[in-house]
């Protein structure tokens, strides 16, 4: 994995090959779990980074739930390599992994991602068929059972923010829901999107402040400060509804409703010059700066058990 090219975009096959490579190189630290199969039958893989123990408190990170946001899957690949490089080297990460497990799902929407490579680079949703409509796909970030169907999503199957016929209708979402419920000990959940350069916490479907808003705001502020310190990339932070727009049925509103206090959503580079077409030359700097923010959130989770 030292010669893998982290500064270019990769296909689904290349990323899945990378997962196996990393597991083969670090069998004591990394394992690959299949948490389900996509609508079109592709395996859904999660990397588990663990230094021992069973069912330890854990941190979940996912990228690529919106398939066209290519810098996020590419950053996820870089994060995976970084964890294997820094365990035993970086005291903060070593302390985190000596007590917590890290789960990293890099291609959270494999059907959509494959479709961006084969047919339509602008594809965002899943590839499920909706009975009675010629339009395809559900927005997997509107399909969660938290404010599902409320304003902030569309009931039109042709819309990019179509929430689906019912909550968890998308197997890509249901697979994570089942994993989180079965694990039962996830303490932080970070879902990574692009673009707009934002770090957000619940809620998205209501103006009501989350009970842990003050703490989440403080953690977000520290994380954004760390991120900006590397290259000066400016991020805003706050609740989803206040920072970007009303969005219902979102991932982190559901994880927060499950008691996972440290629930965050990132919107990575850029602010719109290239949008989803971020040049590959920005992959590594984007991943590097985001990593600094992730470390802050993970360290806070380690130091504030609940």
């Amino acid at each position, binding site marked *: 994995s030292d010669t893998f090219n982290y500064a270019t*975009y990769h296909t689904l096959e290349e990323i899945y090959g990378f997962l196996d490579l990393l597991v083969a190189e670090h069998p004591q630290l990394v394992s690959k779990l299949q948490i389900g199969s996509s609508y079109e039958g592709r395996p859904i893989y999660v990397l588990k980074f663990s230094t021992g123990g069973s069912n330890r408190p854990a941190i979940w990170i996912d990228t690529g739930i919106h398939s066209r946001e290519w810098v996020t899957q590419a950053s996820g690949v870089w994060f995976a390599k970084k964890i294997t490089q820094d365990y035993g080297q970086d005291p903060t990460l070593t302390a985190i992994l000596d007590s917590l497990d890290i789960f990293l799902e890099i291609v959270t929407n494999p059907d959509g991602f494959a479709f961006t490579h084969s047919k*339509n*680079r602008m594809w965002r949703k899943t590839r499920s068929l909706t009975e009675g409509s010629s339009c395809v796909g559900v927005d997997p970030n509107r399909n969660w059972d938290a404010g599902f169907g409320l304003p902030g999503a569309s009931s039109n199957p042709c819309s990019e923010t179509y929430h689906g016929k019912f909550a968890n209708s998308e197997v890509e979402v249901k697979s994570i829901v089942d994993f989180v419920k079965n694990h039962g000990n996830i303490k932080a959940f970070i879902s990574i999107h692009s673009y*707009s350069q934002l770090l957000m916490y619940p809620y998205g479907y209501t103006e009501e402040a989350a009970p842990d808003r003050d703490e989440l705001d403080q953690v977000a502020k520290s994380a954004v400060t760390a991120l900006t310190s590397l290259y000066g990339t400016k991020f805003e932070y706050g609740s989803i509804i206040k920072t970007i*727009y009303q969005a219902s049925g979102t991932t982190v509103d559901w994880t927060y409703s499950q008691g996972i206090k440290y629930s965050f959503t990132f919107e990575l580079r850029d*602010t*719109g010059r290239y*949008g989803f*077409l971020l*040049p590959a030359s920005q992959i590594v700097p984007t991943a590097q700066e985001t990593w600094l923010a992730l470390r802050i959130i993970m360290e806070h989770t380690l130091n504030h058990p609940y």
Partner: protein
Amino acid sequence: KENFAGHQVLRISAADEAQVQKVKELEDLEHLQLDFWRGPTHPGAPIDVRVPFPSLQAVKIFLEAHGIGYTTMIEDVQALLDEEQEQMFALRAWARS
């Protein structure tokens, strides 16, 4: 494979709530095939929309007719996609050799 030649990404600046609503009207016109990268939310928040070439003129006339400001963020989406593909293939060829 979908081709995006001539598609542009516009950044729309809605100055007030009325203008936000006007842009939302655009969002509902499915025949325009608009792809909102950042949807209309509140005044002052950037609205980014990919506009297919056949809809470009209509959209620009609509925005200008309602005094809604916009700039062109991406002149030709396909040109950027071609660059992205070339970069991927070039590095893949290098890796193979």
